[in-house]
């Protein structure tokens, strides 16, 4: 199981449809401050089913929709699709490639798809269960959050070890 590519449109600062191909080894994302690097990490966390607006650095879930610039109007929806190679069938469904899609409208309405067929958020959570990749574990570490392991109290540190076991 590995990430093949990510398609982002209308999510945060991605006003135009953008596609990112990932390598099997190390893919590095570089660029000036405020140019949209952490928004890519947020897009991955969101499409995998993140439900907390705060951990997406927003106030509510519609804050992820492109809110316009001095030259462009705000958009009406945000959509992200994550394409995953599943030839080792680690994701509990019988496809060689799995495309997970999430969409949210200004109205607050959300839509979820697995390989283009509509599903619920719960189905996306279940898809990633037991694969070792979780939004709260050690597979996505947001900016400035590496120190949380050290700075938290012993009883709060448990979570990252539980995720692994």
């Amino acid at each position, binding site marked *: *199981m*590995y*990430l093949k590519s990510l398609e982002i449109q209308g999510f*945060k*600062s991605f*006003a*135009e449809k*953008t596609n*990112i*191909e*990932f*390598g*099997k*080894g*190390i*893919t*590095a*994302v*570089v*660029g*000036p401050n*405020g*140019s*949209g*690097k*952490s*928004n*890519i*990490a947020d897009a*991955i*966390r969101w499409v995998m089913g993140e439900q907390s607006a705060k951990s997406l650095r927003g106030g509510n879930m519609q804050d992820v929709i492109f809110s*316009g*610039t001095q030259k*462009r109007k705000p958009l009406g929806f945000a959509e992200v699709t994550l394409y995953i190679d599943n030839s080792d069938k*680690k994701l509990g469904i019988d496809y060689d490639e799995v495309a997970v899609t999430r969409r949210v409208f200004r109205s607050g309405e959300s839509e979820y798809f697995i390989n283009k067929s509509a599903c619920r958020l719960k189905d996306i959570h279940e898809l990633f269960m037991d694969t*070792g*990749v979780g939004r709260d*574990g*050690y*597979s*996505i*570490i*947001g*900016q*400035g*959050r*590496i*120190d949380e*392991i*050290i700075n938290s*109290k*012993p*009883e*709060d*540190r*448990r979570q*990252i*070890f539980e995720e*692994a*076991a």
Partner: protein
Amino acid sequence: MKERFVEKFRIINENFNQVFAELFGGGRASLALTEPDDVLTSGVTIEVQPPGKALKSLLQLSGGEQALVSIAILFAILKACPSPFCILDEIEAALDDLNTYRFADYLKKFAKDSQFVVVTHRRGTMEAANILYGVTMQEQGVTSLLSLNIDDVEREAMLA
């Protein structure tokens, strides 16, 4: 569930001591359960001793040393339970150049079992990457992406 957790914890702890010594160039480190009898709710304490120094409480470590300890724990867990992919956003920001290269070497070692997507400003990490993307806002407020090679980065940084 209980035995599984204790067994995994033991392996992560062994890995932590080994990874710590490799990242710090010596010294030792260990994890312990605050209540070993009550495994399902116990907290976790961290003890480290950088090479040549006395045993330290975490608070006395420097900013960079604390980040390096967290990175050592991350790799110790990844070694015990490899994750198919891992997204890291500037986790090496507090490291000096030498430790950044040590971190990058570790990343390369682990990239055989896990896929990494890393956001970074550091040269050491960029040099370890197989694929490099530059993000820019040529149109203000709108992100666009371009594929780069490491020589572009030098020019890009100065042109931005």
